């Protein structure tokens, strides 16, 4: 077909990196996706086309996406055939839509527009019991990881500040992070004052001891976080952003 518009959809060209430009960072399951025969995976893809695939198959297929471009290319061609048979191929994209979407999301992530507030939004939903059972469970699992990451991210600056003051003063200056501080710090005896940007907490000996213990606990995790894992956690959070009100309203009103 020569310079075919269909060829512009070079899936092989898109597949490096995840949708957010990073791999998921999750360990492969017991059955390593890379060990599964290709034909088996493509058969799973075929079943997924027809919504007849088992959950485990879907998980394997998704994990296998990291091992090469072939599966995604297969998936795309299967859908081109279906679109052609169902007369939906009236407009095949003249640009690589998937690549464009990935590029935009990577751009937004780099600019910090894909914020990590998704999990807060989700937490709100869970508290309200809005989400349905299955999605809720999965979201809950993701939320645990996200919450741990958030706690650590909040805890790490605390560690730095507290270490500076430890042993010399009974006052710990905790910068910024107003709400998370209240949620994260152990309950303390003593005077408490807050301002928009900083909080000064006066501690008695017992409270200071508890605070130092808490900081020490954070320090172990924060050290790990400070290495490679920090990126993984952050990347888990990055792709999810709070919904645009316009979209939410639209989706709910229709």
């Amino acid at each position, binding site marked *: *077909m020569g310079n075919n518009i269909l060829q512009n959809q070079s899936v092989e060209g898109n*597949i490096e990196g995840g949708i957010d430009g990073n791999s*998921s960072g999750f360990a492969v399951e017991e059955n390593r996706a890379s060990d599964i025969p290709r034909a088996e995976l493509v058969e799973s893809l075929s079943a997924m086309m027809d919504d007849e695939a088992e959950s485990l198959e879907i998980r394997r297929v998704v994990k296998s996406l990291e091992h090469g471009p072939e599966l995604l290319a297969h998936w795309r061609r299967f*859908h081109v055939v279906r*679109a052609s048979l169902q007369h939906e191929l009236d407009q095949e994209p003249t640009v690589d*839509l998937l690549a464009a979407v990935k590029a*935009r999301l990577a751009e937004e992530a780099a600019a910090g527009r894909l914020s990590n507030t998704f999990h807060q939004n989700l937490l709100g939903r869970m508290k309200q019991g809005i989400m349905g059972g299955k999605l809720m469970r*999965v979201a809950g699992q993701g939320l645990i990881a996200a919450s741990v990451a958030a706690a650590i991210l909040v805890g790490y600056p605390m560690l730095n500040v507290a270490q500076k003051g430890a042993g010399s003063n009974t006052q710990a200056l905790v910068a910024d992070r107003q709400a998370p501080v209240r949620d994260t710090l152990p309950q303390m005896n003593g005077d408490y004052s807050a301002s928009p940007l900083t909080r000064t907490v006066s501690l008695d000996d017992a409270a200071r001891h508890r605070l130092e213990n808490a900081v020490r606990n954070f320090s172990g995790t924060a050290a790990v976080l400070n290495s490679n894992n920090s990126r993984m956690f952050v990347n888990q959070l990055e*792709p999810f952003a709070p919904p645009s009100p316009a979209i939410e309203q639209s989706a709910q009103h229709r």
Partner: protein
Amino acid sequence: MARSSSKDTDEQLVERVFSGETRAFELLVLRYQHRLLGLIGRLVRDPHEAEDIAQETFIKAYKALGNFRGESAFYTWLYRIAINTANNYLVSRGRRPPDTDVDIDDDEQIEAQVALADHDDPASNHQRDELKKAIDQAIAELPEDLRTAFTLREFSGLSYEEITEIMGCPVGTVRSRIFRAREAIDNKIRPLLEPD
């Protein structure tokens, strides 16, 4: 063997995204891009604008994935975002959105009748025709058992269970036949879809 229901594949892909496997979203993009382009193309009547809006729709969907509750099918949810995005686009350009909503139930039927500007492009038409011809020929050359299973699934929209009853063979056999049919067709059309 318990099978997933119709919306389960999409739901599970969304769950994979929630679990941190963001690449699952790529499968959703490739799955729905054609339908979405057809839908948006009908609204804006310009293939290039339709592509931009489709891109925007997927981005909005990704960002708003936390709102997807699994109560409706993923495509229904995506469809609403697309309609909203297209209408907003038209308004922002001083153009009037369609008076009536495009009914999702009519979506597939109408898509077959759409006339976009792109249709008048002889090169595009030729490519589509050539692809369609290759697919038809590949289907015609399939062994009968594969062709029957594939046709019942793809044209009649029957489930594997229903095909099993018609063909009198186990579900696993139906599944395998449909897969082998797709593979055979794929082998024929791959040269047309991949760069040299």
